[in-house]
């Protein structure tokens, strides 16, 4: 047999060997699948929490009040200017008339239209800013200072307490997700490695005899690697299928009024990383196990 033939043979042996200890292999497959499913569910949950947090937090809204006497024309210009400033993501403006309408609606459609001619409300705007990672407080303070110094602006209301809270969250958010993710991957890897290691105990005898009759490193390790990879891939795929099913049924339960929580599935990129890590762990743990065998 030449090298290619032997390689093919060893790959085949790896696959055929899976059929030998059917019971142990079955156990391992079930255990891995469930474990990976559990881990993925965790990651899915965290991913969605982060999505929610990112879309809601890390941003800060504050209101600007103009003097009731300010000319609406000037104010419109200032709105334009503000919405072009750094960090500003969006600006929702209310003319006194719009403010009155929205107020009237908020009160349960109480008719306030009789106030129209004598509108007590000033022009207002709600500004949403994206907090920069570095020195968020100072930047926003600067922005507010700028705005307050504009002519006609009464005040921009942002308590320093609210600012402090938001910037704290922004800093934390980036620091939680990835460490937590790494933690979960680590935990799952450890359990997976243990499961593999225990399974390989059942192969120890064969490995010993193969060594004694002169088998080289590759002859011994290739089939075991192939077996581990196949198991990892199958259980990974099964776990993903389970995850998709879980996501669907959870969506049916959660994505209803009044929760409207939609669980997004993991993006393709995450799934690629998942399989990468899976293979890595499979190879590593089986390698460790054979080394000691």
């Amino acid at each position, binding site marked *: 047999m030449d090298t290619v033939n032997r390689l093919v043979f060893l790959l085949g042996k790896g696959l055929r060997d899976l059929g030998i200890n059917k019971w142990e292999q079955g156990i391992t497959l079930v255990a891995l699948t469930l474990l990976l499913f559990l881990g993925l569910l965790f990651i899915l949950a965290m991913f969605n929490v982060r999505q929610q947090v990112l879309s809601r937090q890390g941003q800060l809204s504050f209101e600007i009040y103009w003097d009731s006497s300010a000319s609406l024309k000037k104010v419109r210009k200032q709105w334009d200017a503000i919405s072009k400033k750094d960090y500003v993501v969006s600006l929702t403006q209310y003319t006194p008339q719009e403010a009155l309408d929205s107020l009237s609606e908020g009160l349960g459609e109480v008719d306030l239209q009789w106030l129209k001619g004598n509108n007590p409300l000033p022009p207002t705007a709600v500004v949403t800013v994206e907090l920069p990672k570095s020195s968020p407080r100072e930047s926003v303070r600067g922005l507010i200072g700028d705005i307050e110094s504009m002519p006609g602006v009464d005040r921009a209301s942002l308590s320093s307490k609210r600012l402090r809270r938001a910037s704290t969250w922004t800093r934390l958010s980036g620091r939680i997700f990835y460490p937590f993710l790494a933690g979960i991957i680590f935990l799952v890897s450890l359990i997976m490695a243990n499961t593999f290691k225990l399974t390989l105990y059942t192969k120890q005898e064969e490995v010993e005899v193969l060594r004694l009759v002169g088998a080289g*490193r590759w002859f011994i390790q290739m089939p075991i690697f192939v077996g581990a990879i196949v198991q990892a891939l199958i259980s990974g795929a099964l776990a993903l299928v389970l995850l998709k099913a879980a996501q669907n049924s959870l969506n049916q339960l959660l994505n209803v009024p009044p929760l409207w929580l939609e669980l997004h599935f993991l993006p393709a990129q995450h799934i690629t990383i998942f399989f990468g890590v899976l293979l890595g762990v499979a190879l590593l743990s089986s390698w460790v196990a054979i080394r000691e065998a």
Partner: protein
Amino acid sequence: MLKLRHVSYAFGSHWVLKNVSFEVEPGEFVFLFGPSGAGKTTLLRVLHGSLSLQRGGAHVAGFDLSRLTKRMVPKLRRAVSVVFQEFKVLPHKTVRENVALPMLVRGIPRAQMERRTNAICRVLRLENRMNLPCRGLSGGEQQRVAIARAVVTNPYLLLSDEPTGNLDDELSTRLLEIFKQFNQFGTTIFLATHNRRLLEQVPQAKVLHLEDGYCE
């Protein structure tokens, strides 16, 4: 083929081999004779690379054991076959698979593998056990599988540890005949035993006496 110079081996502080020196020429038939616990198995394990050399120098089938790296061990083991005292057959594999194992490891073509396996099993009277898993074999049958596995590759050197412990007189005699045949075709035979009667059956053989770790 074999050349030992002042080889000593200890498990912990218990010296099992003490200053063992001898030489075996290619094609010789050698008995390593000694009582239980003399160190026969230990010596064979050193020669086979299962135990690494602690003191002294040893050459086996062209390999210098004092310079044997981990990567060289498989090569040494393909040149030197062993019959182990505890057989070391794989209980869940069939006789055929067990016997073919060393050829599989060497990458010998399938057809040739089949032919040789069948031939050696016929000689050792295992022909109607071929497809049974080894856990369903009697002690003597398992021993014969171990022997078949060792000689099937036509090794330069055959180390054999008490190969007749579980065989009756007829099979023992038959086995010695097989060893003699291989010997005539060029295989060096190195046979550890405590059975004095085996020695008598191969008068031309050289006998090394091992006792309490000393060899004369």
